[in-house]
């Protein structure tokens, strides 16, 4: 684990909802701890309803945790802020505004004293960045799903936030469009060194984009059960990453978790309230993969099982 001061620190987070039927309140997740370093791209995955969106909303400041704290850049997160750009699952564009007006609205919020032309130019730069030049005067209803999502990305990037939060941004897109936008996102993030927290259900998307993948167990009492270090080297090419020795071990590990291990935590455990640390999976810890490249140095833990517990 890096020793540098973490950029985002989440401590002992829990969210409890009152029961809809008037019975015991429901603890969606608890004892959630994790850190994100500057420039890191972190993906979260887990089954539907485990509380991923709730965590993202708490990070955004749109929702409040029942227990626990979130610190960003040393300051506690107490409400929404321009420091954290959010890309919503449903793109959340304002349908009465054009593409340019939607992005300009955000830019003007960020820099209220800028002139009209400055705002326009700044917005146009980000519209071009996501490949929407020529469509800036269209209304969202005239755009395809992929184009709308790109406007959402342009809007979030245009305010130059310290951190980006994305809730399944590409969930509603077809595979082809999703691929194109993922490539664009990869490029933009490489250029801007953006710190990203992203929810996804797509294992391949997580592998392509992330530095770290957090796996959430099923709720109630969901946890961050495992953290996978994505050791695939950058820059990554969609067409080439599967050739890397770490690709299949990571993928298999993720799929295995979602299929079977995710059930073994949370409410099904013996002591649901017992605090726990996530296990960390690092493909570099394996020798079975017999890496072909010279870059992979066998580590002292060689021969150990795939997963080992550490204190995160």
């Amino acid at each position, binding site marked *: 684990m890096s020793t540098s001061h973490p950029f985002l620190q989440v401590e002992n987070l829990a969210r409890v909802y009152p029961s809809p039927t008037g019975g015991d309140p429901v603890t969606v997740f608890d004892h959630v701890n994790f850190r994100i370093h500057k420039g890191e791209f972190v993906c979260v995955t887990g089954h539907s309803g485990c509380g991923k969106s709730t965590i993202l909303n708490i990070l*955004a*400041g*749109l929702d409040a945790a029942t227990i626990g704290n979130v610190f960003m850049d040393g300051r506690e997160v107490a*409400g*929404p*802020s*321009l420091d*954290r*750009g*959010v890309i*919503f699952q*449903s793109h*959340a564009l*304002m*349908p*009465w*505004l054009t593409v340019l007006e939607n992005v300009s*609205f*955000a830019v003007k*919020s*960020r820099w209220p004293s800028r002139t009209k032309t400055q705002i326009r130019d700044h917005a146009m730069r980000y519209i071009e960045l996501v490949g929407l030049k020529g469509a800036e005067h269209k*209304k*969202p*209803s005239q755009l395809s799903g992929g184009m709308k999502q790109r406007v959402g990305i342009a809007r979030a990037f245009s*305010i130059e936030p310290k951190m980006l939060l994305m809730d399944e941004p590409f969930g509603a897109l077809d595979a082809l469009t999703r691929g194109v936008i993922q490539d664009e996102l990869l490029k933009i993030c490489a250029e801007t060194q953006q710190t990203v927290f992203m929810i996804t259900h797509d294992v391949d998307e997580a592998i392509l984009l992330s530095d770290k993948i957090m796996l959430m167990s099923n709720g109630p009492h969901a946890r961050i059960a495992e953290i996978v270090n994505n050791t695939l080297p950058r820059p990554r090419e969609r067409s080439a990453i599967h050739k890397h020795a770490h690709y299949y071990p990571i993928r298999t590990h993720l799929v295995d978790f979602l299929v079977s291990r995710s059930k073994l935590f949370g409410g099904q455990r013996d002591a649901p309230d017992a605090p726990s640390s996530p296990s960390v999976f690092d493909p570099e810890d394996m020798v079975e993969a017999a890496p072909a490249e010279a870059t992979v140095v066998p580590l002292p833990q060689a021969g150990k099982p795939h997963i080992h517990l550490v204190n995160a």
Partner: protein
Amino acid sequence: MKRMTLTLGQKSALLSLALFVVFLLVWQLATQPETQGLAADVDPEYAALMGGGTASSASSFPTPVQMAQTVWERLSDPFYDNGPNDKGIGIQLAYSIARVLAGFFLAAAVAIPLGFVIGNSRVFYQALDPYVQLLKPISPLAWMPLALYTIKDASASSIFVIFICSLWPMLINTAHGVANVKKEWLDVSRTLEVNPFRKAFRVILPAAAPTILAGMRISMGIAWLVIVAAEMLVGGTGIGYFVWNEWNNLSITNVLFAIFMIGVVGMVLDSLFGLLGRRVAYQE
């Protein structure tokens, strides 16, 4: 071998025209003097009627041609003013429209800001709901005696009645539109730290505008219905008073003419709001 095909618009225009012809024919058959049988033979009859029509049948139902003549006469000089009981139709309509607009915009000035507050706050919504539910079903004309007693001015009283009847649809629609602004748009403005003033005018207002305008359109429709009745009650000026006055004069032709003009003005007002509504509409 090209067959002529009509567009939907052409077809409906033709049908409209046909309905109008049928309507005129039935009207003609129902109102023409007994001596004549067929529509084709009536031309000389009209010539006779045109000379002494009003004298021979002041209270009888006019034929289409008599009607057309009256419409033409009255519309060619709409703004004459020969004292309290004889004013041009333009002047009478202007009085009514002015009252409707005054009452309507007063109501809008109250209903839209209040609707904003109610729509934004569940507490206000629930606190005011019983009053709205109680006051809404009251016929606006029931307020008239109270208005006359307190305001003591006929014209102002009818403006007040218009105010009351325009209030509810705008208030309810504004509150509804504001309360139903999508959470995601509000979340966007929260993450962008948009100040409350800018949020109200740049997010909530445009988001709720179609619903608010629909409420304004309903209000305007009701106001135009009510003004006729209100002016019949209080008298003096306005299209409602004109109708009542002409009925007292037993001039069915003028009553019919007034009815026709009420319809035309109502249609114009409604389509104005329809146009405005289309301008603020958005497609998701």
